[in-house]
């Protein structure tokens, strides 16, 4: 049951998390285009951590059964949280004059996406990419 955790507090950590995601995904047999989808989703979530919550932790684990394997990515921070989740998940919504595609985009790139956030407590995002070639 190996789980790999990586703390995120700066730009360089975002790059490291992306790289780690790629490595884990490669071991799980994902195709190169799927690896890029995964790395990009990680990039979005990790950047949000740095921008809005200052820091946080991302963990990676292989999940599934014999017939269905996937990569689980959990991003956890103790930042300000998100008051209106459905708004934050809308294309183009941003509180930082940014593109507002990070959350909705990551959701599109992954197969499963769950977000839990409480103002003043923090944000937890769980997402999974399944390997379709199984």
């Amino acid at each position: 049951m190996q789980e790999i955790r990586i703390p995120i507090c700066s730009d360089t950590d975002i790059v490291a998390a992306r790289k780690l995601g790629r490595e884990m995904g490669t071991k799980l047999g994902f195709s190169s285009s799927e690896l890029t989808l995964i790395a990009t989703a990680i990039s979005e979530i990790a950047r949000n951590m740095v921008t809005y919550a200052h820091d946080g932790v991302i963990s990676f684990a292989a999940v599934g059964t014999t017939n269905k394997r996937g990569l689980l990515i959990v991003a956890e921070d103790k930042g300000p949280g998100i008051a209106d989740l459905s708004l934050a998940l809308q294309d183009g919504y941003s509180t930082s004059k940014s593109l507002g595609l990070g959350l909705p985009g990551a959701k599109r790139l992954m197969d499963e996406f769950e977000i839990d956030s409480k103002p003043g407590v923090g944000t937890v995002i769980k997402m999974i990419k399944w390997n379709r070639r199984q």
Partner: protein
Amino acid sequence: MPVPILKQGALLIATLQDALTDKDWLDFQFELTKLVGVHRSTGVILDLTVLDVLDSFATKSLRTIAEMVKLRGARAIVVGIHPDVAFTMVQLGLTLHGIETGLDLEDGISLMKHPTEFRSH
């Protein structure tokens, strides 16, 4: 890691590196717009060949840079976006908003020699 910018005739060629920090992007933006003026360049090619991820932050930075280059009176062409990266960008909902694109550096240079008329797609 600063972005290397090469002058070739009337063109500037910038080779973007992986893992650019926010500061790198800002420095690059500043340096590039400055160089366009200094060399009175007519075009800028942004070569993304080595990037394996282009997230919304990088895309926004790129758009800003292309916009500024245009305001300085030069043409901007983005080249070398990897197939996987292109597909991911589309899935994510990212576009380059009217920025011209080319296959690679060679294509970018040849595009610079032609007027833009047929590229309205």
